[in-house]
């Protein structure tokens, strides 16, 4: 008789990748079509196809809305969703903590503080008006991560879930207050507190999409390369050391990679909660705990989730646009409670 404990999970085949990629592409096109002005599916595909291949776009098609407003936004949302979900999966594995994520651990808030500080002080890098904001966000994200983990370690050497989350929540509240203060004194130079705490993709452009694409390609490649090490950490840091993982080096590389990716995302769209927390859990339910499958599955599911969240934020109370964080938090919080409850019951 078959043991009831045997996992029924199928292997993550190339066909699964193809199906996920197709679902993502379809969702992206749907998100370009839908909005305050509805555009036909065929017009959207034609406009994008012709633009990609340098062909003239027919006059009858709403070229400006498709190519200059919605497409860059959809690209940024897709890449941010993929990046945030990937970071969440990597952090949950590295810290062996199902509650780890940029937003719960205060990393996103740290990145937001970096971006606000750079904007308020007018810090830029030569040759790039946006580079200063992005680099500061990355540095602050990494600094926050190191600070939170150090404080949690000082409190509890086992780096228990509860210690990290407690410190992360308090850190987030503290940082939000500082961001609020900076915005009060430098409101002309920064975006609103609402943008930094709930996020928005309004007004993003192709340059930001290119930066996100570059960051995701490089950092995502690094994280995928470290899948075996993430598996070892997810089983236990001592076990990782015993099987020959260079624990300190790998940990540092993954933390820097995650900080860079979160820093880039936050500097473009503000803090978008729950994507990195919830989507890896859903991906884990689909493909199992092995990071070789989990990371790609998280990437696709995070992108699709954030696209649908952004679509809802744009269209639910149209013409009023909600902050995307309102939608991700509403859906994500409920989903997380359900998943967590189910996982604990299923043990």
């Amino acid at each position: 008789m078959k043991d009831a404990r045997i996992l029924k999970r199928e292997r993550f085949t190339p066909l699964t990748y193809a199906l996920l990629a197709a679902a993502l592409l379809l969702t992206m096109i749907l998100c370009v079509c839908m909005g305050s002005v509805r555009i036909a599916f065929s017009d959207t595909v034609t406009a994008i196809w012709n633009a990609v291949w340098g062909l003239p776009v027919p006059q009858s098609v709403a070229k400006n809305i498709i190519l200059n407003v919605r497409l860059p936004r959809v690209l940024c949302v897709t890449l941010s969703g993929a990046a945030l979900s990937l970071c969440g999966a990597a952090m949950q594995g590295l810290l062996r903590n199902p509650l780890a994520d940029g937003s719960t651990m205060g990393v996103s808030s740290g990145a937001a503080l970096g971006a606000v500080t750079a904007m308020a002080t007018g810090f830029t890098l030569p040759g790039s008006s946006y580079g200063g904001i992005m680099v500061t966000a990355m540095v602050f994200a990494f600094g926050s991560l190191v600070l939170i983990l150090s404080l949690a370690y000082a409190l509890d050497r086992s780096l228990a879930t509860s210690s990290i989350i407690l410190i992360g929540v308090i850190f987030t509240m503290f940082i939000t207050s500082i961001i609020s203060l900076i915005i009060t004194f430098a409101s002309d130079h920064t975006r609103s507190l609402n943008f930094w705490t709930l996020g928005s993709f309004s007004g993003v452009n192709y340059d930001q999409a290119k930066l996100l694409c570059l960051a995701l390609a490089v950092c995502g490649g690094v994280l995928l390369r470290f899948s075996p090490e993430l598996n070892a950490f997810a089983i236990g840091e001592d076990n990782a050391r015993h099987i020959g993982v260079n624990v300190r080096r790998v940990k540092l590389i993954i933390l820097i990679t995650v900080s860079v990716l979160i820093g880039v995302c936050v500097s473009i769209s503000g803090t978008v909660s729950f994507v990195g927390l919830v989507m890896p859990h859903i991906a884990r339910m689909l493909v199992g705990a092995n990071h070789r499958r989990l990371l790609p599955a998280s990437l696709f599911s995070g992108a699709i989730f954030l696209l649908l969240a952004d679509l809802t934020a744009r269209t639910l109370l149209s013409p009023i646009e909600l902050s995307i964080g309102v939608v991700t938090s509403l859906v994500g919080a409920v989903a997380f409670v359900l998943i967590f409850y189910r996982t604990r019951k299923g043990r």
Partner: protein
Amino acid sequence: MLSCRHVSVRYGDFAAVDDLSFRLEEGQWLMLAGPNGAGKSTLIEAIARGVPYTGSIEWSGQDILSLKPAQFAQRIGVLSQRNTVGYAYTVEEVVGLGRYAYKAGFLSGRDDDGKVRVERALELTGLTALRHASMLTLSGGETQRAFLAQVFAQNPQVLILDEPANHLDLKYQQHIFSLIQQWLKEPGRAVLSVVHDLSLARRYGTHAVLMHHGKSVSQGRIGDVLTRDHLRQVYEMDVYAWMREMLSQWS
């Protein structure tokens, strides 16, 4: 193979391991024995490079701290006392990670015999039927066997075991200890283990270090170390009389 010289592990003013020296040679199964708090597990952690120590620990004359993590894992395999898994990995995935040291690094070659070693480790520990089972559903004993299989798959020259009988019922205690004894018969191998059950230590050990308050009270051949007087000194009771009384329950 492995030698510890004047090893001490301190937590502030407290010395968990205090100026301890011993050698582990090929073919030996050295038992670290002693009461709770004697420093046995801390010593194992020091050898596994998990806690900072003073003194020197050498592998064939080479400082173990100079070995790269993968080199260390190819020579020394460690089985911890407490092993838990937080996510639903399969038994096979956990055992397969034992081959990590042979695949680590961008320029590493293929691990040709990895699959065979994993199969053999699953078979030896009786886990072949549970290879696709979630680790979250295993009993304590099955979990311990899965991690032992991981160490077997790692194929080290020295096994370091912290309470290998932890969570195991009598059947698997006998099974696992016999397996380790069998494993030890291959040339170039040795075992160092912490064992609380002195009967198991006497039955399977070839040598022993008896520890108390972080120091070595006695070391050498197992029969010369686990004597009535030595045991009375560290356990502050007549261990022989107690063991006989226990055994008399079965007659």
